[in-house]
């Protein structure tokens, strides 16, 4: 495109008989044209040229000098150019011919010897135009040939990258050698812009062998990063994991393999693919934790399948009371445990569907077991069991349980436990709540939660202990009138035995 602009006859720069003739020589970068212009300038030195102001005077010297010159067409043309001007002077032309001006400045001008015989005739003039045109034509032809040859030569790398940066059309196919390609890529990286880098990377990927391409990516992390991003956007996991593996990012590769496996439609396909992925890509020691997690998951799904088969035929009451909404298959460990607590809490501990077995299988800790089983038992309103699961296990636990005094949970913070047992229309016995709350160390904490969950007995105890009659009054007003709690609170307020502040 640029070349077209450069060589346009309308463009004053290039048109030979336009004002700026000398500029043409600067465009023709080849040495030859420069040499020519030098020669012409030299000739003109000897030829006595008129000062620009004297343009109107004809120049006999040039005409006389010419015959002695060797028959060089270019020189001829130039020499005759002056003569032509001498005859039909165009001051603009003269003024703007720097070559001439240079001459003027350098040479002391001899008085012109005007001679009418030196005026060219009509035919000479034609001849002159013709030769000028011919020279022009040659020049253009040469230039055109040069361009034509250049057409298949790679343009300057910085120019190409600049065009890529501006999103202008450009062909990269001319950079054939590996050296060129790498130079192109390095130039692109120096531009920082991801799009430019990617354009070059895609081109290189298309045109070199896989081995070389990998090598290129290894050496240039910026390029690799763009390529990886491109593959991610593209959604081609296979190539992506390949690239990761080649670059030594095996953990990343494993993750994408894993994602692919998890994308499988059915659970069975997923399992098969996961097993394959485990063998193929999770060998990196850094992934040992993930590996065990996946193994565990596969085991859970196996177990889930067994349970599913057994339960699908089970028509017992708990399945009608709490209908299953979603299939168990593929659920995470905690959900499986919840399922076991909900439907199989009473199974013997050795049965594969019992909570204990699930806990062992999934590698869950005591905290998780307590938390989940409380949730599931609350849903079934099995309060004694809730209490049992909250109390510490073993002999000491049994003793404290029998006294009922020291009931507490080490695993669940009290406010969350309260929320848990009040969840989903749970109707916890007041007695249980009071005992739980009494296990809290400070009366202030106890009172706050007791007020929130309407444990009247505890509120009364605490307010009495803290001697805050007013707080009890406020609480009493909140209670529904004529309820037993209300009467209890009133009784406590009216109790003259209590010492208030």
């Amino acid at each position, binding site marked *: 495109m640029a070349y077209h602009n450069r060589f346009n006859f309308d463009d004053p720069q290039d048109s030979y008989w336009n004002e700026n003739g000398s500029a043409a020589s600067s465009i023709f970068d080849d040495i030859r044209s420069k040499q020519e212009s030098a020669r012409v300038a030299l000739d003109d030195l000897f030829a006595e040229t008129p000062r620009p102001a004297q343009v109107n005077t004809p120049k006999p010297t040039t005409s006389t000098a010419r015959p002695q010159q060797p028959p060089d067409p270019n020189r001829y043309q130039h020499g005759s150019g002056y003569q032509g001007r001498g005859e039909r002077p165009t001051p603009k032309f003269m003024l703007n011919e720097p070559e001439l001006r240079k001459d003027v400045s350098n040479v002391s001008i001899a008085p012109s010897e005007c001679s009418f015989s030196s005026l060219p005739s009509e035919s000479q003039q034609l001849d002159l135009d013709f030769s000028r045109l011919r020279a022009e034509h040659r020049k253009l032809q040469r230039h055109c040939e040069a361009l034509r040859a250049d057409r298949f030569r790679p343009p300057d790398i910085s120019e190409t990258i*600049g065009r*890529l*940066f*501006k*999103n202008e059309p450009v062909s990269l196919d001319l950079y054939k050698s590996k050296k060129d390609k790498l130079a192109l890529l390095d130039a692109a990286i120096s*531009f*920082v*812009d*991801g*799009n*430019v*880098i*990617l*354009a070059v990377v*895609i081109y290189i990927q298309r045109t070199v062998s896989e081995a070389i391409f990998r090598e290129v990516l290894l050496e240039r992390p910026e390029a690799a*990063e*763009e390529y990886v*991003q*491109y593959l*991610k*956007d*593209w959604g081609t996991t296979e190539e992506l994991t390949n690239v990761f593996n080649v670059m030594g990012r095996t*953990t*990343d590769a494993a*993750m994408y393999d*894993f*994602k692919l496996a*998890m994308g499988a439609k059915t659970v069975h396909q997923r399992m098969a693919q996961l097993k394959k992925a485990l063998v193929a890509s999770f060998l990196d020691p850094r992934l040992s*934790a*993930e590996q065990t*997690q*996946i193994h565990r*998951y596969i085991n859970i799904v196996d177990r889930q399948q067994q349970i599913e088969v057994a339960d699908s035929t089970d028509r017992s009451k708990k399945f009608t009371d709490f209908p299953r909404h979603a299939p168990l298959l593929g*659920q*995470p*460990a*905690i959900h499986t445990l919840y399922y076991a607590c909900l439907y199989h809490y009473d199974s013997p501990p050795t049965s594969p569907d019992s909570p204990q077995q699930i806990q062992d299988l*999934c*590698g*869950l*800790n005591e*905290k*998780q077991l307590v*938390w*989940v089983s409380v949730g599931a038992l609350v849903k079934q309103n099995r309060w004694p069991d809730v209490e049992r699961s909250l109390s510490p296990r073993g002999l000491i636990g049994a003793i404290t349980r029998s006294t009922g005094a020291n009931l507490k949970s080490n695993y*669940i*913070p009290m*406010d*969350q436990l309260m929320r848990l047992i009040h969840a989903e229309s749970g109707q916890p016995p007041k007695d249980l709540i009071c005992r739980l709350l009494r296990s809290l160390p400070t009366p202030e904490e106890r009172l706050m939660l007791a007020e929130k969950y309407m444990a009247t007995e505890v509120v009364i105890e605490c307010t009495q202990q803290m001697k805050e009659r007013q707080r009890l009054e406020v609480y009493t007003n909140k209670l529904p009138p004529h309820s037993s709690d209300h009467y209890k609170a009133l009784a406590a307020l009216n109790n003259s035995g209590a010492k208030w502040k």
Partner: protein
Amino acid sequence: MASNYDDHPLGLLSELARRELVHFLESVPGRKELVVDSSLLRPLDRVASMSLLKEHEVLGVLPLRKNATLPNTSDVSRLYLTRACVAMTKEICRLICSDPEKNKAIIWVDRQLAACSRELELQGVLGTVIEFEWALPFVPVESDLFSLEIPIEVTATPTGDLWSAANAIWQFQSLYGQIPTIYGIGARADKAWKILKRLYQEKGEPRASPDQPVSHLFVVDRSIDRASIYLTALTYESLLHDHFGISCGKVTFGADVEAKTQNRSKEKPAEAPEAPKKPRLVLLDNNDAVFSAVRNNHMSAVFPFLSAKAKELRGFYDQGANFDKVSAMKDYISNELKQYKQQHRQLEVHIAACEVVLERTAAEGTSSRIELEHALIAGVADLAQVMDYAENCILMDNSPWQVLLFVCLASVTNNGLPPKLFNSFKDQFIAAYGIDYIPPLHFLAERGLITLRSPLQTANNFGQSLAGGHGSNASLPFLIKRLSLAPSSSDERKTGFQNPQKMSYVFSGAYTPAICQVVADVMMHGFNINELKKTFNGQVFAEENSCVPAERKPDNRMRKAIMVFFCGGVTYGEVAALRLLAHLNSFRILIATTNIIRREDYLKAMCNVSLTE
């Protein structure tokens, strides 16, 4: 321009974009429909109104979604407006191939990408469509907040948003003149600046202009301060964004807020119970008098304000009942009542929203989370206790992303978690949420957000960040100490959220957002490049395009704004902090950003999880 500068800050940018869009519309003759990438719908609305589009024969705007079919309309040209991304290009190719006869054009927002043009080529679509490139400028979200609204997935990639960011700054400078002083902090800022330099070469360098409204520009890399994302910011706007997701200054409250407002309005018998309608879109900006008053308030100061406002309104209504003269009554009804009614409605919406936010935070046990967060920032937290809380959250089945955000904070404040806690957390997390979360956890570790503490490090080893190498970001404990981001004593913390005097109020006084602190320091003491280089591992530059040396501090008597450009996103907490900074020092601060961060989405993008999952 100068006259309406205050009304429409940086209005020229939108104007230019608008005209450019109109030009594209006009170059496709006849009636047409616009198919718009759904992430661009609201930014488009900010730049070009529907009536403007209608003027140029646009029949309708349709969202471009995955696997959606478009109604078949004959004799109507179709213009696709999308950000250049492979997924959208595939979608467009599918639509174009299904109806090859249709006259169509694609307007690429920002620019066409090599990956997209390759897709067009592969699908044989290249050459059959007219393509335009439309550089979306800063979209004015508020009079001092401008966003490029680049999707968060793009800003999470290494170079995805840099060109757009650089181009936006170039656009701004080409319209308003060269910015005299420019500071850059962070690796991403540095890269964006390199691209900007290239843009100068290719598109021309902006000229200096005396009208330039901005005297100083900060280009800041988001990733130098991630703590501001993990911490729960307690300003009203920030909480709304966390819970409901504000997009381009608009929000759709969930069903619970709608229910609350409807319950209140049911007292009026005139309103017939309506069938559940489309969720209402609420515009949140300074035209909403109630919102503009509380948006930057600390949550503890919001309810007092709202109830005071409600009382005030009550007073106005009562006043209406006490008029003796009919003319006064008439006057009151025609002039003031309408205004009060409007405020009443706004008040209703915001009280309902507040209540829902508080309910939700209470259900998630946010108060203990905030306490622990503050302890972590102050460096006094017991990690076992912190992780215990995280485990409780997991067992309560809270949002996994919120849990991860919390653990991210625990990790970055301690330079990683000890192996025992790290592994047990991972196991419990996977056990509760499923093995689908293995890749996210892995990517978080890769990006250094939740990491294993290496045996050589200890939590109190502040100096180690300097040994972390030139390229890496300074560690959080180091930053906190160096920029004194956390208050030295706890009394200092608890003061004045009603009428805040310190930027740390957005995090209840526990932490000053690092980027805001840097801006404040420069404002007070000038730009000390050597000190900042020490702080940010050398990734700092300053450039002066005027005779004023870059080290000199900005002068608010010049009546020029300071612009802070967040490369990679800003949080509403930081916005509030900068607004306070501007207010306290009577500066004008313009906040520009690639996007506004919603912290859950940010984390998802960091884990390479698509936001729709």
